[in-house]
């Protein structure tokens, strides 16, 4: 049996469709249920639907053998797992965004950056030798510059429509080509290779 940790939200539908095309029985993912662990009818697959940032945690611990998660989360979480394939779905960029002109605020000389990618933002600005104040948020990041909680945001941008509707623009595309990735537990790949490798090969063909 192969256990999957799948990201809820943005990537859920597309990743389920992709797996179905690769012969994974995903019917159970569409059932109305409050169950947390879903097992396919043929008993070959088990799924957990979890918050994207939790996918690498489940996979690193080996509770899940495989996972589907955005590259943004992988950069942020920096877990000890194998990144097997680019699934080429859910493409977006990790961007710095804000008002086109920065207002100088005398009392907070350091750039205030609101983000849910705290580790990535810290690394980015420390590499650039820039002092910034990171403001950790969990959602609706665009609200921060609008309410003057922050000067800029560091977040994923897919279509940019939320930015536009609030008068914000992309200031810099920091990481482009952020897509969903198939990740694997380092032990499972070796100890369950007979089950996992053929599936990975199929997914690879499907996304090629």
């Amino acid at each position: 049996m192969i256990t999957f940790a799948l990201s809820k939200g943005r990537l859920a539908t597309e990743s389920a469709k992709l797996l179905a095309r690769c012969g994974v029985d995903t019917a159970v993912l569409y059932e109305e249920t409050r169950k947390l662990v879903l097992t396919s009818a043929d008993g070959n697959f088990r799924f957990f639907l979890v918050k994207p940032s939790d996918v690498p945690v489940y996979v690193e611990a080996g509770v899940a053998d495989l996972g589907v998660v955005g590259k943004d989360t992988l950069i942020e979480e920096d877990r000890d797992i194998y990144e097997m394939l680019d699934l080429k779905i859910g493409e977006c960029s990790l961007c710095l965004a804000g008002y086109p002109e920065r207002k100088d605020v005398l009392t907070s000389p350091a750039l205030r950056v609101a983000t849910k990618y705290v580790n990535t933002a810290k690394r980015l600005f420390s590499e650039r030798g820039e002092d910034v104040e990171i403001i950790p948020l969990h959602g609706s990041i665009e609200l921060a510059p609008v309410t003057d909680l922050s000067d800029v945001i560091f977040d994923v941008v897919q279509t940019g429509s939320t930015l536009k509707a609030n008068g914000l623009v992309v200031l810099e595309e920091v990481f482009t080509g952020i897509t969903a990735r198939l990740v694997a537990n380092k032990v499972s790949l070796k100890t369950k290779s007979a089950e996992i490798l053929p599936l990975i090969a199929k997914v690879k063909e499907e996304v090629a």
Partner: protein
Amino acid sequence: MANCRLPAGVQDVLPRECALLTDLKLKLERKFSASGYLPVLPAGLEYYETLAGSENAVSEEHMFKMTDTDGKLLVLRPDTTLSIARIAATKLGLDRARLSYFADKFDLQSGGGLTSREIFQAGIECLGEEGTYSDAQCIAFAIECLKEAGLRDFIIDIGHVGYFKGLLEEIGLTAAEAEGVRTCINRKDTMNAERLLKKAGVTGDARNNILALPALFGGKEVFPAAEALTHNSCARKAVDDLKNIDRLLTEMGYEGYISYDLGMIKPLSYYSGILFSGLVKDLGAPVLSGGRYDNLADAFGKHMPAVGFAMGLKRILVALERQGALPEEKKPLVIVAEEGQEARAYREFIARTERGEKVRLSALTGKEGAKQEEDAGYEVLPVGGNT
């Protein structure tokens, strides 16, 4: 109750687990000793300089540091192999030494889950030995140790840094670029490896060969695939080494226990040859990790090529529990003295311990004492005038 909390990433080991840990340690101690390994117990504190001087084997964000009375920087032992190499090179006066240890190592960074900041390890190091016969012996012994621990369904996954180093020789990256590529390859992250290689201006076959590394894992079929990729002498020698090791391990009867991964390139910079990990189906992280480090002792003034491995005893216990292989708890028989018969009960207790029975002498006495022990779930042996 703030005064009874523990810092993050460390744990007390309670009696039931501690008994299992002690049993496991005893088994391995007997195994080490019977196989000719001499025990050492390295010091828990080292000078920061000692560790920083040896090819920066452990990166500093992983070290617990404190200041000595003379202002020198001390670290809590972050890696036992380093300490063993230091001991062998500076204190034993031997050209060859096979050493074993049971020791804690400390890691300032804690990942939570299966990683901890205080890691109890058992390990062996074969110092002053070169060649694939020594490598194969070390891997074979790793398999024997995991068997001795009671694990089943495990494999030893073997790689070789020489192959990656050989491919790198062909493209001439800076140290920082090489480290970036290594990190990506070790994660099987070909996309970012590709991006880094492109940035470094590496193209063509050299690029494709590096990007092929993550897929070079499995059985011995990886050897011809690896040979087909490159003529670099360092890389070809690595494959020859692995082929020799494979032949030796197969002849020794360990064929079913081994797999290969040329894309496994661990972060510790002192590894110079083979690398290996012990993987158990029931646990998401390796239970054993080792490799060859031919130049580590050079920093301590003596050239002693060496190979060794360490096992995480806590992880082995977790894997054993998941495999349902932990023994049932055996409670001791409890001797309770009847009124006024304390000395007699004590003699009975001594006689039984000398016979090797598992027995405890209760501090309680009489019928009431016997009842309390029974209520606590123990089998009671009353000792007195009538018994």
